[in-house]
C-alpha cells in the first residue's frame, strides 16, 4: 500500500523529529546536571505515592478553584497516554507489521480510543476556549504554541476518528489522512522541547524528584578563616541553582498559578514569581549553558517576597518556585546592597542579638529560668520577648497558664538570641550563623523546646540541622497543647458561641506541615468554628514573612492588608492564629480596615482561646 519512497520519507521525517527532540532534551538535561547538589531518591514509596497523586490523579492540577480546568487537562493527558499504543500501531502500518489482532484493535477503539478521543477533544477545546476567550490574567500573554497545540490535537483526533470510522472513499483520501496524522505527531516532537510543552516529558520526573522540605534552600556555611580562593568559590556558588531548581525551570508549564496566589503580587507589588523566579532564568541558562543565573533574578522583586511558599504549594508540576533566598543571599553577601531598614535590623541582630536592638526584656524577667531539671525550654523569640505587639504578652502568659495546669515544668533561657530567622530570610547568612551558633551552644543538653513562634520552630528544628547536629526536639505550642489535650492532661470546655475562624500561618502550615493540631484545639474550644476560604496549606500570608515585618511602610502595596481584609469580610467575631507575627499583622490590619458599622474582630492566639476555656 505504501511505496518505498513513502517509507523512506517517513523514516527520514520521524528520525529527524526524534533526533531534534532528543538533542534539545539533552541540551537541557546537561544544564540541569551542572546544578548544585544532587537529586534525592530517599523515601521512595512516598515519592511514588506523590507521583501517583499528582500525575495520575492530577490532585494539584484539579485543585479547589480549578476543578473544571483540571478535569479538562486530565482528559488531554489521558488522551495522550492511551494514544501511545495507537500511535505505535499507526507508524507500523506502512511496514505491514500488525501489532494487534483485528478484534483487539476494534475493542481498543470502542472502549479506549473512541471515548478518550472525544474526551481529549473536549479537553483541548475547553482549554483553548479558556485561554483564548476567557483569557485569565495569570496565563500571561497569548501563547502561539498553545494555539498550535490546540490545532494539532484537534487534527490528531479528527484524523484518528476519520480513519477508524473508515470515512475515506479512496486510497488517496486514506493516505492524505494518514500522512496528516503522521505529520502532526512528528511535529509535536519539534514543538515540545523548546516550549512549555516540555512539561509533558519532564513533570513526572520533577514531581518525583521534588524535595520534601518546603522551602528547601541550600545552607551557606561561612568560614571567616577561609582563604581568598575558598571565599571566591563560595560567592560563585551563590550564583548557581541546584539541580532541582534547574529542572524546575525547564519543567514550568507557564500556568501562572504561582503568581495568582502570590501575596506580594496580589498586594500590588512587582513580584511575579512565574517570571522573576522561573522563566526569566530560562534563556540565560540556555545562553550560558550553565546554572549560574541567580543574578538574573530581579532584586527589587526578590525583596518583596514574603517567602510564604504559596507558589511552591500550588505549582502543578512540582516546582519549588521561591528564590528570594538565593537572590537575597547573593545580593547581601556579594554586593552589600541592602535596603536601609534591613541594615538597621541586621545591625540590631549583630549588636544585641535581637531584632529590636533591646537590652532587656520584661517578660523574660517575669518567667522562670530554665534549669536542667525542668522538662522544657520555653523559647520566646524576639516578638514575644520584646513585646512587638504588646497584647501578645497576654498570650504568652496564657500559654504558661496551660503549661502550669498540665503541671509541666518549663523555663526560659536568659541567653536566648534571635533564632536568626530574619537574617536567614534576608540572605545575611553570616549574621544568621552568628546567632545560630550561640543558640546551639545555649541549647546544649536541652531535650525539649517549645515555642509560640513558628519562625523560631522552623529554624531551631529544620534550618539549624543543615549546619549542626541537633539533639533536642522542638514543638510548636499548638502541637504541644494538642498533645496535652489528647493525653487528658488538660481539659477544655467548649466556650462561648461567638463565631471563630482560624488563620493558618505559612510557616506552620506549609513549612512545618501542621494544620491539624490548631484545628483540634479550636474545635474543642469554639463550637462555632468555621474555615476561611483560603485555609490549610492554601492559606494566604499575613504579609509579615520573609522579614517583611520590618519593611518600611511606604504607603504602597497592600500585601500586609490582604489577609486582614479577608478576615473582616468573613464577618467572624474572633480570628485565632498560631503565630505571633500573624497576630501582630492581624491587629495592625483589622483596626484601621474595619468598617464603622462592623464590630471590631478580636485577634487571639490558640493559647488564648484554650486558656480561656480550660476546665481543670
Amino acid at each position, binding site marked *: 500500500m505504501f511505496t518505498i519512497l513513502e517509507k523512506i520519507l517517513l523514516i527520514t521525517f520521524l528520525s529527524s523529529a526524534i533526533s531534534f527532540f532528543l538533542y534539545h532534551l539533552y541540551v537541557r538535561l546537561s544544564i540541569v546536571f551542572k546544578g548544585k547538589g544532587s537529586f534525592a531518591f530517599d523515601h521512595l514509596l512516598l515519592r511514588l505515592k506523590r507521583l501517583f497523586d499528582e500525575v495520575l490523579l492530577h490532585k494539584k492540577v484539579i485543585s479547589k478553584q480549578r476543578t473544571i480546568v483540571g478535569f479538562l487537562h486530565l482528559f488531554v493527558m489521558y488522551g495522550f497516554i492511551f494514544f501511545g499504543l495507537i500511535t505505535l500501531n499507526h507508524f507500523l502500518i506502512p511496514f505491514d507489521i500488525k501489532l494487534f489482532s483485528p478484534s483487539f484493535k476494534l475493542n481498543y477503539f470502542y472502549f479506549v480510543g473512541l471515548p478518550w478521543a472525544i474526551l481529549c477533544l473536549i479537553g483541548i477545546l475547553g482549554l483553548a476556549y479558556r485561554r483564548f476567550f476567557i483569557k485569565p490574567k495569570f496565563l500571561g500573554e497569548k501563547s502561539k504554541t498553545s494555539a498550535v497545540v490546540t490545532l494539532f490535537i484537534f487534527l490528531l483526533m479528527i484524523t484518528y476518528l476519520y480513519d477508524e470510522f473508515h470515512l475515506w472513499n479512496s486510497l488517496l483520501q486514506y493516505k492524505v489522512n494518514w500522512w496528516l496524522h503522521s505529520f502532526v505527531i512528528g511535529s509535536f516532537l519539534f514543538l515540545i522541547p523548546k516550549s512549555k510543552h516540555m512539561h509533558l516529558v519532564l513533570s513526572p520526573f520533577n514531581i518525583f524528584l521534588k524535595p520534601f522540605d518546603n522551602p528547601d534552600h541550600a545552607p551557606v556555611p*561561612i568560614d*571567616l578563616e*577561609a582563604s*581568598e580562593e575558598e*571565599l571566591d568559590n*563560595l*560567592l560563585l556558588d551563590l550564583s548557581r541553582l541546584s539541580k532541582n531548581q534547574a529542572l524546575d525551570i525547564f519543567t514550568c508549564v507557564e500556568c501562572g498559578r504561582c503568581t495568582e496566589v502570590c501575596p506580594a503580587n496580589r498586594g500590588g507589588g512587582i513580584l511575579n514569581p512565574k517570571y522573576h523566579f522561573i522563566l526569566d532564568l530560562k534563556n540565560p541558562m540556555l545562553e550560558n549553558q550553565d546554572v549560574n543565573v541567580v543574578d538574573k533574578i530581579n532584586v527589587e522583586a526578590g525583596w518583596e517576597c514574603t517567602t510564604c511558599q504559596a507558589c511552591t504549594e500550588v505549582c502543578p508540576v512540582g516546582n519549588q518556585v521561591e528564590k528570594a533566598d538565593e537572590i537575597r543571599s547573593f545580593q*547581601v*553577601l*556579594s*554586593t*552589600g*546592597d*541592602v535596603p*536601609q531598614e534591613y*541594615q538597621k535590623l*541586621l*545591625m540590631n541582630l549583630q*549588636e*544585641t542579638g535581637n531584632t529590636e*536592638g*533591646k*537590652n532587656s526584656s520584661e517578660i523574660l524577667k517575669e518567667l522562670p529560668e530554665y534549669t536542667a531539671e525542668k522538662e522544657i525550654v520555653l523559647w520566646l523569640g524576639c516578638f514575644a520577648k520584646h513585646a512587638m505587639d504588646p497584647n501578645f504578652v497576654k498570650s504568652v502568659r496564657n500559654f504558661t497558664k496551660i503549661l502550669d495546669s498540665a503541671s509541666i515544668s518549663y523555663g526560659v533561657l536568659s541567653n536566648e538570641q534571635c533564632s536568626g530567622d530574619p537574617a536567614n530570610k534576608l540572605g*545575611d547568612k*553570616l549574621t544568621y550563623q552568628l546567632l545560630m551558633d550561640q543558640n546551639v551552644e545555649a541549647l546544649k543538653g536541652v531535650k525539649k523546646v517549645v515555642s509560640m513562634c513558628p519562625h523560631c520552630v522552623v529554624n531551631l528544628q529544620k534550618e539549624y540541622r543543615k549546619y549542626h547536629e541537633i539533639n533536642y526536639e522542638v514543638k510548636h505550642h499548638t502541637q504541644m497543647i494538642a498533645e496535652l489535650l489528647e493525653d487528658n492532661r488538660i481539659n477544655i470546655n467548649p466556650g462561648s458561641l461567638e463565631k471563630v475562624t482560624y488563620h493558618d500561618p505559612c510557616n506552620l502550615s506549609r513549612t512545618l506541615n501542621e494544620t491539624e493540631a490548631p484545628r483540634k484545639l479550636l474545635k474543642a474550644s469554639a463550637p462555632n468554628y468555621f474555615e476561611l476560604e483560603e485555609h490549610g496549606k492554601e492559606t494566604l500570608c499575613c504579609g509579615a514573612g520573609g522579614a517583611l515585618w520590618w519593611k518600611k511602610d511606604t504607603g504602597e502595596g497592600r500585601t500586609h492588608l490582604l489577609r486582614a481584609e479577608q478576615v473582616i469580610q468573613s464577618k467572624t467575631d474572633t480570628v485565632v492564629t498560631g503565630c505571633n507575627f500573624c497576630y501582630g499583622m492581624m491587629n495592625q490590619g483589622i483596626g484601621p480596615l474595619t468598617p464603622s458599622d462592623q464590630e471590631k474582630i478580636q485577634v487571639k492566639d490558640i493559647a488564648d482561646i484554650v486558656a480561656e476555656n480550660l476546665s481543670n
Partner: protein
Amino acid sequence: MKIAVLTKAIPSYESLIRIDTSSKWIDDSLVNYVVNESDAYALEEALKIKESLADDSEVVVVSMGSEDKCSKIIKDGLAKGADRAILIDSQEKISDPLSIATLISDCIKDEQFDLVFSGLQSDDLGSGQVGVLLGEKLKMSTATLAIETQIQPSAIRVKRELESGWFQWLTIPLPASISIQSGINNPRYPSLKGIMGARNKEVAKHNSNQFSNNQLQSMVELYIPSNEKQAEKIEGDSKSVASRILEILKNDLRVIQ
C-alpha cells in the same frame, strides 16, 4: 584623590547609659559602641567618589578613641570598602573639639588628604565642630551640612542645607574638609568579600600621647537630667490667674517674650 573619613564610635541608642564613678564620663563597660550615624553617610559619599573616579583614589577611615571601642567600627568601614584606616589611640576622655581637631591634625597632616569628610556631628557630644576645625588646622577650605557633593578637577561642588528648606550650592577648592548631613545617600552593607578583605587591610595606629594636648575645655560634672513632675495650682480671680500664667510662660518656661 585621597579622602579621609572621620569616624566616631558612639554609644548605641539602646545602650544603658550610666555615669561612672568619676562623675565626669559615662560608664563605658555597659555601653555598646556603634558608628556615628552621619559618619556612615560620610563614608558612603567618599566611597561613591572613589568609585566614580575609578582611579587609584584612596579612602581612609580615621578614628579616635580607645582601640576596643574603635576596632569594630574601623573593621566595618574597611569591610564596606575603605582602603585603610588610621586609629588615634586615646584613652583620655576628651570632649573639647579643638583639642580633638588638633590631635587629629597632628596625626594626619603628613598624609596630604585632598578631602576630609566627617559626619555633620557626633550623636553623643554633638558639637559639630571637629570637621571644620580640622580643616582650618590643615589649611583646607571648609563647608558644613553637605547634602550633595560633585567632584570637579581640583575643586568640589557642595550643596549645603540652610534653614527652612533652603539650600546653597558652592564650589570650594581642594583640599577641603566637608561635614556631611545624614540621609544624603544609601550607605552600603558590608559584603562578605568586603568583610574577608578587611582582614588584610592596614590599620595604622598612632598614640595620642605622642602629641601635646592642652585641653581647653574639661568636663566638670556629668549627671542624668532629673526627671520631675511639677504641678502648680493657680487660684484667685481670673485676672490674677491670667497674670500668673503669663509670668510662668515668660519667666519659667520662657516660651514667650
